[in-house]
């Protein structure tokens, strides 16, 4: 390629190996299907290839013509056809999913009476039609073959009636003594029915205890607000109104409460399509490298103990620049000690003051209450309350309470608790180890647990009841803003289980109450007239519109604020190593048996089926630890063995570990995956660890180097490394200056192709754009695609060989130096090239182009030469090396989408732009004798994306969203110089740094 065509772009690297340009990396890059392709049969079944062929040959010879008659297929209609049901046409039902103190409004697709796909409910304020990885993956939990399927008493299977009989004796006893010795421990909930039943319980048993606890909770947020505002209020953000956003350790695009709405609001402020458009600016101060940090225009990596000092420094600077924060005097602290860049603070303060009333400060759940108090006061002083942040007094909640838990455990240990009912959740696994919950259980005479799996707690209880999944039970919920939703089942409980509502009703009243009746009883108080009709309407809508709780305007109490500030100033920051425990793809561990979430690469580091002790580059160097080394972490006498990982950009002297791993005896997917970070928890934030290297290395399966789109000339030392502008980015100011998306890009001359293309006569021409400004890297698209398209889970070993089957992947690129790199994210899927390199090379014509612009894959014609994926420069084609379909458990087969072929061994597959959705919509439009709307078809990834980064539609329709976006000045084709003419184009990344701060992260 001659010099004139050599494009130039920022220097990106995807892994430390790539940066160091190790021979192993080049070797990996060279072969798309790494060494060992021929020997996998030896791995799998202890057969060598020769034996296998011999065996197959023999069985074929003996098969004869016996199988010529085709197998019998049955058609099994109903006895009486339900009124709304049309065989072959799915029905959508509105329901909701409880998640912490939130309730996500959903529309769930039901095929032939079983739920197959979850979507967000477009009308519902908590999801606005979007989703996240936990919503999309939840459906697999319903069909999990490792779910508990029966009630056991001391390990023996018993009937529901046996439990009811046992409970009635308990009920009589506790009714007589006002509940002395009775305790219920539940997960957090925000639900009118559960709240009513909790009240009923407390009325029936005034001396009993009812404690809620979850390890990932917002306790400190409510504590902090309560300290200065006098009530436990719920903050709600309107990030789309903010010009400047400051995140204090708040991963608000991914895992903080309300992340779907916050991600959308944040992305709304970054949709720049002309040089006059405005763009918000995000500052992130955090210890781990989170997705929010990756989107930040300015990022400061600080140890957890230094974050409070940062907020103090900011408050001091703001007040010195003229902001009045009540009668508040920020105590002075030595900035040098806390290692904070004063310039960063100064510029940030200036920016905040310049955008008063149009900025917002968010603090995350890992920050202590004092930080939340301070942030509350600052938001108030900056005039944000009622604009970008509002507060409501929430209802119907049972918040997680560590103090309540402490009291309960103390009582359990002293024998004061006779009967404990664990209503969902897994306390033996999740309660901080120093509480000694497992030991405390020994002091309880009668232990009852309701949970979905036989987990760590189940091994220690007397009665274990299997819990209904939310897709098979009745219930209700209140979202963050107070909107009331209903949970309605899509299928009868698969294993005749009970829900938390039903168990709590039995416990509180001694009577068997069906969930349906319990919920209707609660709603009788909401619906004042015409109950049956209103009830039916709510079941149709899924929620009660306009039921959000009215906002209030609280005021800061100055003296409480001063107390919080003093407390923050006295935090010691000189500790050697600090620990940060994060919710992972498995959240707090509840999704450990979910194969989709285990295989979903961790958003920043891209490892799968694992968790690591993550170190920054300098800290790893100091400790002599490299990625893959095994280390022993010790905190206050407790220790775990865990492999190490270097995360460039993480704060120094900080260890970050994801929660939810290291589980045993739970299910075939979860067992022995990763290390249990809960063993290092304590009730107070972070801790001091000592790190010792132990012998051995760890088997890693990470995807960060897979699908590298090259730009390397191998084996030619004379040629410079050519950097392809795969990811184009620029700053807003330069974009405004010269309108170019990246510094210098020579013109690509019009190129010719020797292949003929289809005539494209159809009125429907499909195209897609992905906005890199909006993409936050959450991975909802990946899981949604997996759910919609029957994509198999391949397991850790196959992922390590690059054989993960995700049709869409989110690539993560680092740029800058090892200490303070920036991150850019790019979802990559089949580009549906008009001039596709994969099509001409298929020897059997299994991949062709259709008249609507799609590159079509025909599975039955594919013979598995893999020449197509060899030729694909984007590396988006996935090959079925094994017959994954054979391994799908019976219940999981129920989840599969009947509109998409389930692929067998030896065929290639790839993104189809959801051809099944296109076809269904096209046929529907034909039946209604109308045209298909330009925006009518939504691909699965588009529908799940919380920020509308993915837009799909008819590019021939000039009014469609996708056609308009393709005219954006940020629009570019990936690997344009190869003349593939992809239908999927990207909108380049723009960052918005403050002119007075260098555009890089600081530490």
């Amino acid at each position, binding site marked *: 390629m001659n010099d004139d065509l050599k494009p130039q772009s920022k220097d990106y690297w995807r892994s430390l190996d790539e940066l160091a340009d190790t021979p192993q990396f080049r070797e990996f890059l060279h072969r798309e299907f790494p060494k060992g392709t021929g020997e996998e049969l030896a791995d799998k079944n202890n057969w060598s290839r020769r034996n296998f062929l011999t065996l197959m040959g023999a069985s074929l010879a003996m098969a004869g013509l016996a199988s*010529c008659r*085709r197998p*019998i*297929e*049955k*058609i*099994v*209609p*109903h*006895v*009486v*056809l339900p009124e709304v049901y*049309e*065989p*072959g*046409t799915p029905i959508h039902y509105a329901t909701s999913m409880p998640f912490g103190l939130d309730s996500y409004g959903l529309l769930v697709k039901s095929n032939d009476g079983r739920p197959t796909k979850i979507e967000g409910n477009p009308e519902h304020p908590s999801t606005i039609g979007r989703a996240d990885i936990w919503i999309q993956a939840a459906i697999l939990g319903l069909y999990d073959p490792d779910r508990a399927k029966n009630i056991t008493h001391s390990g023996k299977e018993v009937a529901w009636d046996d439990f009811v009989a046992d409970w009635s004796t308990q009920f009589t006893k506790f009714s007589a003594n006002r509940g002395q010795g009775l305790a219920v421990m539940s997960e957090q909930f925000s639900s009118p029915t559960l709240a009513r039943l909790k009240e009923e319980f407390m009325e029936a048993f005034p001396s009993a205890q009812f404690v809620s606890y979850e390890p990932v909770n917002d306790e400190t947020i409510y504590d902090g607000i309560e300290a200065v505002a006098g009530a436990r209020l719920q903050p709600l953000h309107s990030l789309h109104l903010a010009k400047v956003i400051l995140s204090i350790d708040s991963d608000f695009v991914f895992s903080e409460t309300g992340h779907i709405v916050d991600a959308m609001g944040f992305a709304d402020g970054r949709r720049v399509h002309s040089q006059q458009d405005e763009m918000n600016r995000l500052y992130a101060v955090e210890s781990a490298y989170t997705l929010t940090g990756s989107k930040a225009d300015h990022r400061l990596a600080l140890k957890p103990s230094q974050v409070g000092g940062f907020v103090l420094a900011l408050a001091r600077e703001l007040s010195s620049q003229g902001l009045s924060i009540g009668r508040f005097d920020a105590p002075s602290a030595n900035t040098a000690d806390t290692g904070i860049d004063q310039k960063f603070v100064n510029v940030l303060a200036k920016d905040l003051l310049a955008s008063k009333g149009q900025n917002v400060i968010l603090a995350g759940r890992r920050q202590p209450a004092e930080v939340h108090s301070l942030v509350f006061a600052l938001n108030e002083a900056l005039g944000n309350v009622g604009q970008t942040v509002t507060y409501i007094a929430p209802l119907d909640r049972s918040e997680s309470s560590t103090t309540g838990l402490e009291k309960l455990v103390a009582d359990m240990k002293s024998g004061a608790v006779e009967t404990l009912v664990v209503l969902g959740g897994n306390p033996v696994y999740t309660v901080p180890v120093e509480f000694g919950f497992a030991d405390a259980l020994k002091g309880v005479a009668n232990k009852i647990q309701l949970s979905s799996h036989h987990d760590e707690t189940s091994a220690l209880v007397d009665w274990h009841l299997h819990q209904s999944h939310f897709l098979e039970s009745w219930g209700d919920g209140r979202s963050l803003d107070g909107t009331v939703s209903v949970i309605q089942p899509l299928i009868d409980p698969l294993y005749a289980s009970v829900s938390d509502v039903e168990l709590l009703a039995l416990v509180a009243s001694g009577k068997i109450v069906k969930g349906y009746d319990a919920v209707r009883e609660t709603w009788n108080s909401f619906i004042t007239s015409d109950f049956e009709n209103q009830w039916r309407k709510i079941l149709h809508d899924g929620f009660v519109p306009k039921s959000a709780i009215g906002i209030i305007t609280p005021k800061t109490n100055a003296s409480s604020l001063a107390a919080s500030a003093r407390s923050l100033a006295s935090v010691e920051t000189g500790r050697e190593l600090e620990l940060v425990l994060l919710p992972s793809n498995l959240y707090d561990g509840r999704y450990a048996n979910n194969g989709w979430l285990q295989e979903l690469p961790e958003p920043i580091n891209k490892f799968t089926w694992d968790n690591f002790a993550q170190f920054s580059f300098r800290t790893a160097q100091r400790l002599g630890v490299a990625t893959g080394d095994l280390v022993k972490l010790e905190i206050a006498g407790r220790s775990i063995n865990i492999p190490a990982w270097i995360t460039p950009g993480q704060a120094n002297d900080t260890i970050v570990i994801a929660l939810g791993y290291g589980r045993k005896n739970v299910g075939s997917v979860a067992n022995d995956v990763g290390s249990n970070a809960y063993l290092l928890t304590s009730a107070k934030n972070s801790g001091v660890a000592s790190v010792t290297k132990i012998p051995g290395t760890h088997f890693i399966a990470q995807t960060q180097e897979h699908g590298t789109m090259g730009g390397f000339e191998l084996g030619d030392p004379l040629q410079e490394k050519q950097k392809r502008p795969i990811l184009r980015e620029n700053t807003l100011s330069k974009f405004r200056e010269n309108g170019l998306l990246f510094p210098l890009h020579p013109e690509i001359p019009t190129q010719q192709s020797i292949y003929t293309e289809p005539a494209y006569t159809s009125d429907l021409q499909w195209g897609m754009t992905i906005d890199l400004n909006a993409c936050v890297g959450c991975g909802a698209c990946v899981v949604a695609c997996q759910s919609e398209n029957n994509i198999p889970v391949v397991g850790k070993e196959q992922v390590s060989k690059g054989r993960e089957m995700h049709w869409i992947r989110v690539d993560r690129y680092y740029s800058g130096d090892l200490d303070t790199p920036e991150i850019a994210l790019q979802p990559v899927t089949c580009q549906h090239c008009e001039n596709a390199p994969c099509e001409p090379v298929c020897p059997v014509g299994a991949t*062709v182009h*259709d*008249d*609507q612009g*799609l590159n*079509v894959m*025909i*599975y*039955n014609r594919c013979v598995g030469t893999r020449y197509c994926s060899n030729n694909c420069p984007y590396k988006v084609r996935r090959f079925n090396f094994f017959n994954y379909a054979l391994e799908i458990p019976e219940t999981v087969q129920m989840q599969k989408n009947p*509109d*998409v*072929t*389930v692929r067998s061994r030896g065929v290639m597959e790839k993104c*189809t732009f959801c*051809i*099944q959705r*296109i*076809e269904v919509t096209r*046929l529907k439009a*034909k*039946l209604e*004798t109308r045209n298909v709307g330009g925006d009518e078809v939504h691909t699965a990834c588009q529908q799940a994306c919380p920020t509308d980064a993915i837009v799909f539609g008819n590019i021939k329709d000039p009014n469609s969203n996708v056609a308009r976006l393709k005219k954006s000045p940020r629009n570019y084709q990936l690997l344009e110089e190869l003349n593939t003419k992809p239908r999927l184009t990207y909108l380049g990344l723009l960052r918005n740094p403050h002119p007075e701060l260098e555009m890089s992260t600081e530490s």
Partner: protein
Amino acid sequence: MLALGFLLTGAVGGIWYYGSPKYTDVGYRPEQPVPYSHKLHVGDLGMDCRYCHTTVERSAKANIPPTATCMNCHTLVRPTSEALAPIRASFAENKPMEWIRVHDLPDFAYFSHSSHIRVGVGCESCHGNVAQMEIVQQTEPLSMGWCLDCHRNPDQHLRPMSEITTMGWVPPDNQAEFAARVKAEKNINPPEDCSACHR
């Protein structure tokens, strides 16, 4: 050499014919749990296809009727017939009937009835003259080549909407003109792209 040539031709020709759906699938006539006679109900009694196969105009699938549809008549007509015992049992015990599927496509091929009914393809074109069948049998190969034959040249198979369920329909003399008109009216464009059926 010549003998080898004949042998090879014979082998290929044999596989070509005996291996194709025209041989393996046409004439498939499985025995059903109840000897339901289309000849009686459709031919003699004149019932319309859509009385039982209700969703054919709206859905991808033309459903086999639920037991309740049979019982609509058979609670009064021949209520004690021996042959209908399984139907009555199904209705009484609330257990569905298990019919053997006659017309089947491979799982990777997706067919939609409603789009074909919409344009006026008759039931008879693919399912044969059902009104003459005591036991349902497959009369057409339903192979991809057979489908494409019509997709490439549908004129002879497009009927007026009133004739869709007619058995024994013969295209009239003005079929070509009629087909041209209806193709323009309804925007009929039978797809020949793979994506139409292979998802």
